[in-house]
């Protein structure tokens, strides 16, 4: 038997229900938290259903419902049980299965059973809508099955800063903590949303240590094979510690958001940093001769105008990215590629390609002009590999089309901007520069953290995030409680 089932058996019955409507089966609410991946429907022969959608419904009391997950399935042919697979509908214990169809089609129904709620309009998706009781004794032939969520189905409290560390080290977490196949790992790097959609089974303790206590990871000196140095890119402090013996205290945050984590004053909008910081390939691969604003556009739509090489006033970009305290002014012609690469994977690239002394590397980290003033002759492929797929690069194997990587993995700003519908600067503060609010602690389910940071598309397409600010520090792991079943973002500006 499947992990989770929901609804009544999809079988031929003695009667039917006809006409366009949203119908929720009252029988057999879901018996677990996870995902419905298969739905069966039995429509009456000759009365095909059209425009069908199926959904999991949350009963908010009485006849008030919200959809938790839904999927469009299209037409349903009558006369035999129709099985739909490949679905991905979130479900939690107690949810009900529902269906909408848009024509005069008929669903098989019995004059006995538990009943159904129904309304003659499309309520998929919906939020806190009234769907009246249609019958309390009729069973309808819609049934679903799915799989339980994995071990991350817990709620934990973590400082936002630590979440961000986890965000910046997703490959490390996936690689080291989750028993996922290589395919999934690729997905993790290239399309994080796919990974986030997955339910992992992993001991909570390991998650905690990796995700919620990144400092522990950072501060340790790992005896790891080269392949695991991939973590270096996303958790550069680890590599710095291992290879260079540099004190970590000031470096950790500097790599991803130079200047912020150091506690130093910066005189630049974070958006300016983020644009380049999270879409380095685009910038790196091109030499621009366009205003920064247009670069931002290019970053968010990286497929546009990528073929040409143009000249850009470097100052506009450099000043914000590397040396925010510098004034914009001089125009310099320089391939941005090397600069960007150096910023994001300075240790890796410098060490393996440029052989710069450690002392200079340190200087480079905190003296961007050191990097900016140099034009490195390095094959672009090497840089790409180092930046985006360091483990592969180190193994001298790179087979990932960069375009795919760029869009999926390194344009979060685009997704970020879309989901929250708030000014980018505000998002930056919360999602990518937690140092600004490092004194706050939030409560958020791990999966929802992922949604917030990596997979805003999930939010875009119907999920919601709850983030609650608290004053206490880490309080350990607690099971999800019903109060968090319906999650809503309540942080500033987020909907």
């Amino acid at each position, binding site marked *: 038997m499947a992990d989770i089932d929901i609804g009544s058996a999809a079988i031929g019955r003695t009667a039917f229900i006809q006409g366009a409507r949203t119908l929720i089966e009252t029988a057999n609410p879901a018996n677990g938290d996870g995902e419905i991946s298969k739905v069966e429907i039995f429509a009456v022969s000759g009365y095909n259903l059209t425009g069908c959608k199926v959904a999991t419904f949350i009963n908010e009391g009485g006849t008030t419902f919200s959809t938790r997950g839904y999927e469009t*399935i299209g037409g349903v042919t009558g*006369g035999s049980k129709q*099985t739909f697979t490949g679905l991905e509908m979130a479900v939690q214990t107690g949810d009900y299965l529902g269906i909408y169809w848009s024509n005069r089609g008929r669903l098989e129904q019995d004059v006995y059973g538990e009943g159904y709620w129904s309304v003659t309009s499309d309520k998929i998706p919906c939020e806190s809508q009234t769907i009246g009781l249609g019958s309390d004794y009729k069973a309808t032939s819609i049934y679903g099955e799915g799989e339980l969520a994995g071990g991350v189905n817990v709620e934990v409290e973590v400082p936002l800063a630590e979440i961000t560390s986890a965000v910046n080290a997703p490959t490390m977490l996936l690689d080291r903590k989750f028993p996922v196949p290589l395919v999934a790992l690729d997905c993790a790097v*290239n399309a994080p949303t796919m990974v986030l959609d997955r339910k992992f089974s992993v001991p909570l303790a390991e998650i905690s240590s990796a995700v919620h206590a990144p400092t522990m990871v950072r501060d340790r000196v790992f005896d790891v094979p080269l392949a695991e140095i991939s973590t270096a890119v996303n958790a550069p402090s680890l590599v710095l510690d291992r290879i260079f013996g540099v004190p970590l205290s000031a470096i950790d945050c500097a790599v991803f958001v130079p200047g912020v984590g150091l506690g130093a004053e910066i005189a630049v909008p974070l958006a300016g940093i983020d644009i380049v910081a999270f879409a380095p390939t685009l910038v790196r691969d091109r030499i621009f001769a366009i205003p920064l604003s247009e670069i931002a556009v290019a970053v968010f739509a990286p497929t546009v105008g990528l073929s040409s090489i143009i000249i850009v006033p470097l100052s506009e970009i450099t000043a914000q990215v590397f040396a925010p305290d510098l004034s914009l002014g001089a125009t310099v012609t320089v391939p941005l590629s090397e600069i960007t690469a150096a910023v994001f994977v300075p240790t890796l690239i410098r060490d393996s390609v440029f052989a710069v002394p450690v002392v200079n590397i340190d200087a480079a980290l905190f003296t961007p002009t050191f990097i900016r003033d140099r034009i490195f002759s390095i094959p672009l492929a090497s840089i790409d590999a180092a930046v985006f797929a360091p483990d592969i690069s180190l193994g001298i194997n790179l087979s990932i089309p960069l375009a*795919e990587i760029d869009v999926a993995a390194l344009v979060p700003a685009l997704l970020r901007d*879309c989901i929250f519908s708030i000014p980018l600067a505000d998002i930056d503060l919360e999602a990518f520069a937690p140092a600004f609010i490092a004194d706050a602690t939030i409560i958020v389910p791990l999966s929802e953290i992922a949604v917030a940071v990596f997979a805003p598309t999930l939010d875009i397409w119907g999920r919601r995030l709850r983030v609650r600010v608290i004053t206490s520090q880490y309080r350990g792991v607690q099971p999800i409680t019903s109060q968090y079943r319906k999650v809503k973002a309540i942080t500033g500006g987020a909907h």
Partner: protein
Amino acid sequence: MATAKFNETGTHIQHGFLKIRIDLYPDVSSKTHKLHYVDKPIIPESGIPKRLTDEEFQAWLEGLPTEKELNPCLCHFIKIDTTATRPALEAEIKGTFDKPTFRQLDDLLSDIDKPEKRLRLGQLMKPKAGRGKVIPYSTDAKKLVKKVNTRFGGLEVEVG
């Protein structure tokens, strides 16, 4: 053997992924064929009468002659890239419903009321969800769906 057909009514975007629906029609030698080869009323060329009550409509429908028609035994959704070509999709469908897979499907779907077979069906199809990439949020969903349906309309692939 079976025929896999692209069903444009199922094309949609979910969680940022483009998903399409493939309907699997078993051939006569398949175990599932008899389950889905069903009687259906023959709708006259004049179409369905308008302004009938439900009861009148039912009476009209029940008075029609019937014929046998084959329903799909499985409707499976896969994620595809927006740039996927017709040959690429054909190849993916053939890979998804290769011979061993279809044999298992036919066996499982022919006796799907058994709990162990239901479970195995889920396990069999869960990994075959396609490998389409996340699409940009700025994508016009309606245009994309229309474009995909035009590109793949009428696609049929012999599988299994």
